[in-house]
């Protein structure tokens, strides 16, 4: 049935097929995976700073958690947003386990002195090059749309800390995006 309907099957239909666990569940999962993994992968990629092994672990764990909690998912909601939220959670967990989140460090946001002053980093690279604490808050707030309260809850920091991190993160991104020559004049 799923193969006949192809891309027109809704996410809810596919999720129900996966949840039933009978014949066709794996096929339904394959369609869901193909639809939503690229965005979840991108979310994890940004939070984890492009560490491929960590990102792949995060996406795999994201799907395991998602399939395990299909029963509690509200039917009719945006499956992709729900999955990306899980991916963000998982990625944050990975960063925290590796003790890579340091919100107290006074990180130098300037580019390395040896960098080519005329080189302007693209935004994606600039974000990836941020310290973990800055990058995580910036990605969650400015790209994934989380509030400071939500970020604070997930990162176990105060909302004010999240705001301060975002402020510094934005400044750091600007420093990376602007040519050095502008900074020095």
């Amino acid at each position, binding site marked *: 049935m799923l193969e006949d309907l192809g891309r027109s099957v809704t996410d809810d239909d596919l999720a129900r097929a*996966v949840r039933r*666990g*009978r*014949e066709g*569940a*794996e096929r339904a*999962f*394959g369609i869901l*995976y*193909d639809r939503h*993994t*690229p*965005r979840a*992968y*991108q979310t994890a*990629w940004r939070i984890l700073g492009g560490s491929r092994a960590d990102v*792949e672990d995060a*996406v*795999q764990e994201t*799907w*395991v958690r998602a*399939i*395990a909690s299909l029963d509690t998912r509200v039917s009719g909601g945006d499956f992709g947003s729900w999955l990306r939220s899980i991916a963000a959670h998982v990625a944050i967990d990975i960063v925290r386990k590796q003790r890579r989140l340091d919100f107290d460090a006074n990180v130098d946001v300037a580019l390395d002195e040896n960098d080519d002053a005329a080189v302007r980093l693209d*935004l*994606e690279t600039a974000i990836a090059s941020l310290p973990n604490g800055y990058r995580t808050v910036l990605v969650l707030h*400015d*790209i994934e749309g989380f509030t400071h309260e939500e970020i604070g809850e997930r990162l176990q920091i105060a909302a004010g800390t999240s705001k301060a991190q975002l*402020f510094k993160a*934005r*400044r750091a991104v*600007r420093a990376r995006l602007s040519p050095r020559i502008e900074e020095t004049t």
Partner: protein
Amino acid sequence: MIDNEDRPFDENEWTAEECARFAALSAHRIPPAELKRRTVRVLRERGYFGRRTPSTGLVVGGLVAAAAVFAAGAAVGYSAAERKPVPATTIPVSFAANRGAAPIDSIPQPAPATRHVVWY
């Protein structure tokens, strides 16, 4: 609020140009194909796809094998039932002959009683 007239932008907010650059960021990143196989394998190992019904070929093969075994058993049963019994008339004759011979050969006959008469 701090007067930032000498600054080109409000440090706490993105400019329109910066917002446009954020909006232009790709929302997708193609994962390696191996990741899908790996994820499916893990989910299968954890039993999420473990309740699959057997394939049609396996079911048909099983039914054919069961039918063959049944047919073979039925054929053996029928052949056993159809086998003709030994004619009843022949049995008593042989038994009778044997029955007569057996006691003579195997059971010792008691000696006839002897009467001794003494005449005075």
